[in-house]
């Protein structure tokens, strides 16, 4: 087993990986940009190395800086997390060439399955239908011609992409050149790779993905599906397992296709096969069709829902498999139990086009309790900056069934307090979870656009009680003996309250 792992990432996923290493008795080295010197993942690691200034291309995307840090600190493996260099085959190869272990698939497997073209070919060879698409050339002329053949609307996607970064829906041929240019810039910035891929747009699909795992001993399993259809700006915001759409027969067919593909290419470590499944409106004779979309050759953001329903720790499994151990269970051992939902808590304003609304987090109070898990990268006193993804945390619940899980998530969202400059999507998520279409499991990928296009919070004017509480807070603060000076984001906004302890509940009032 490894002695010391460098985590080539930041935020909640770096914290998550450090945590798994701590439980396994493996030392950790964090890396950070200047923007993250005080970040949670830096505080929790055993060691931390500054790798550059805030822009990702100068720090978290700087393969050489990260390799140098790993060498200098005597690491024997690197975990890339998701995003940044996680799907960069050259980086995986460079790690291996440096004599370290890359905790993920081989560079070669990444090139086969990470490229949409070759992954689609591999899946077609395995008998799985794929979404029509085009990646043969990168010239505008060829792409425009290909789009005409696919038929509009087409999707413009970053070849190296994920998470909606670089993605554009183009309905009008005249808009394609501008979309290509813009998507290339965004892709280059996010992934260091500006290649573009065109895909036919399937209408009203569910986005359903299968978690797969392969090891160096020829074993491959799937860990069932995640339903990821609730998206805004082409990015998942609510994920769950099991999918309310799949029946056992379709679940089995898709799982078998996923495992066959993994085995066919000798894929090792964690990966995810994404499918589009036509909703019930597209079913022929009651049979749903599914299309392979792409493979993500890394851990997914939404891996905790799989961990919740299968009871398997995917990060520990990644580490064990990378260290050469066989997968310690067979397909028959794995069962889904209960129902898990994840909500991504973003510093963004859902009433304003989901634009990031970043800044300080003065107070963050996470919900806790049976069946509730919070994977957070930001805590009280931190700042969400413009440099990176504005996700504050992932909130995951495990309930006995779907209705119980929805109730638990609504409880957790209602008890998640985040105050500060940031505006969060929590009220929006609550409305999504409470929507009749969500309750019915009828969450196609256009659900959010269709049902929440003009979303606004239920009320703009605070209730009288909010005025009362704010005034009371002001009085208690003044009465604490602390000068009633205003507190800025770098000070301590909470101490006046703590000193107000002497205002205890009056017991004679009832």
């Amino acid at each position: 087993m490894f002695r010391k792992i460098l985590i080539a990432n930041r935020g909640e996923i770096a914290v998550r990986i450090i945590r798994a290493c701590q439980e396994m008795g493996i030392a950790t080295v964090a890396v950070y940009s200047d923007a993250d010197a005080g970040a949670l993942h830096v505080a929790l690691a055993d060691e931390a190395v500054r790798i550059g200034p805030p822009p990702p291309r100068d720090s978290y995307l700087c393969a050489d800086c990260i390799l140098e840090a790993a060498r200098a600190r005597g690491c024997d493996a690197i975990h890339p997390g998701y995003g940044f260099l996680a799907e960069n085959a050259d980086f995986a190869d460079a790690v291996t060439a440096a004599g370290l272990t890359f905790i993920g698939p081989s560079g070669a497997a990444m090139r086969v399955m990470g490229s949409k073209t070759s992954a689609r070919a591999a899946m077609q060879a395995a008998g799985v239908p794929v979404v029509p698409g085009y990646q043969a050339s990168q010239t505008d002329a060829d792409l425009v011609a290909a789009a005409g053949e696919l038929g509009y609307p087409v999707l413009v996607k970053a070849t190296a992409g994920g998470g909606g970064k670089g993605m554009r829906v183009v309905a009008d041929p005249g808009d394609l050149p501008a979309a290509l240019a813009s998507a290339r810039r965004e892709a280059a910035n996010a992934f260091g790779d500006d290649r573009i891929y065109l895909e036919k747009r399937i209408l009203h699909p569910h986005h359903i993905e299968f978690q797969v795992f392969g090891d160096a001993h020829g074993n491959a399993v799937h860990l069932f599906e995640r339903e990821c259809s609730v998206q805004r700006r082409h990015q998942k915001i609510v994920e769950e397992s099991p999918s309310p759409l799949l029946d056992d027969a379709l679940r089995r067919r898709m799982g078998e296709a996923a495992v066959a593909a993994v085995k066919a290419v000798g894929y090792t470590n964690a990966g995810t096969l994404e499918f589009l499944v036509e909703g019930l409106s597209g079913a022929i004779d009651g049979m749903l069709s599914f299309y392979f979309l792409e493979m993500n050759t890394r851990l997914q953001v939404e891996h905790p829902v799989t961990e919740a329903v299968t009871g398997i720790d995917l990060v520990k499994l990644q580490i064990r498999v990378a260290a050469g151990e066989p997968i310690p269970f067979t397909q028959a051992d794995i069962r889904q139990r209960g129902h898990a939902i994840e909500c991504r808590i973003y510093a963004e304003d859902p009433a304003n086009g989901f634009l990031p609304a970043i800044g300080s987090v003065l107070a963050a109070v996470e919900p806790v309790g049976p069946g509730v898990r919070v994977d957070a990268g930001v805590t009280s006193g931190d700042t969400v900056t413009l440099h990176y993804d504005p996700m504050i945390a992932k909130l995951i619940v495990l309930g006995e069934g779907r209705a119980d899980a929805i109730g638990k998530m609504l409880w957790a969202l209602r008890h998640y307090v985040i105050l500060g400059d940031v505006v969060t999507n929590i009220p929006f998520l609550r409305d999504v979870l409470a929507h009749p279409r969500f309750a019915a499991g009828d969450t196609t990928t256009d659900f959010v656009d269709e049902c929440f296009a003009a979303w606004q919070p239920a009320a703009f004017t605070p209730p009288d009680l909010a005025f009362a509480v704010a005034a009371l807070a002001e009085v208690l603060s003044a009465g604490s003996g602390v000068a009633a000076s205003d507190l800025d984001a770098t000070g301590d906004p909470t101490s006046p309250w703590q000193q107000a302890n002497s205002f205890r509940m009056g017991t004679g009032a009832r």
Partner: protein
Amino acid sequence: MARTIHLQSGEVERAVVVEETGGGFVVRVGEHVFAIAARGGEGGRLDLEVDGRRLRAYAVRQGAQTQVALDGETWRLERTDPRRRRTGRAEASGSLQAAMPGRVLDVLVAPGAAVTRGDTLVLLEAMKMELRIQAPADGQVARVLVTPGAVVERGQVLVELE
């Protein structure tokens, strides 16, 4: 001893009267009178009993703003000084502001240019995303206040239309 706090949210302004009693407080918001017992805790926590109902609220202050988390909702209230009446907002209609902090990638219009609703005027980059600042209506560019490469704050005016 009663104290009056002036608070504002959007266009709504309230004078809130807080009076300390034996075991707690009587708080008046307009015609609404609350009997409140309060206990402060960590991180801005306030354990309240309001007219017999227990509530866990959070309140933190930042500048003149007090943020209150109550029953799953977050409210932002500004403390105002009734002696200094505000003279109306400074926003000129027709000005386009940055909705978030970021960097100006490109400015696609020049002063005097005629623009049609939906035209992209400025390209902003932030959070690894590209944002288009588009014309909300037909008009003419009065002033361009940023240049490519500039770093802008939220609310900063980028372009003025007329």
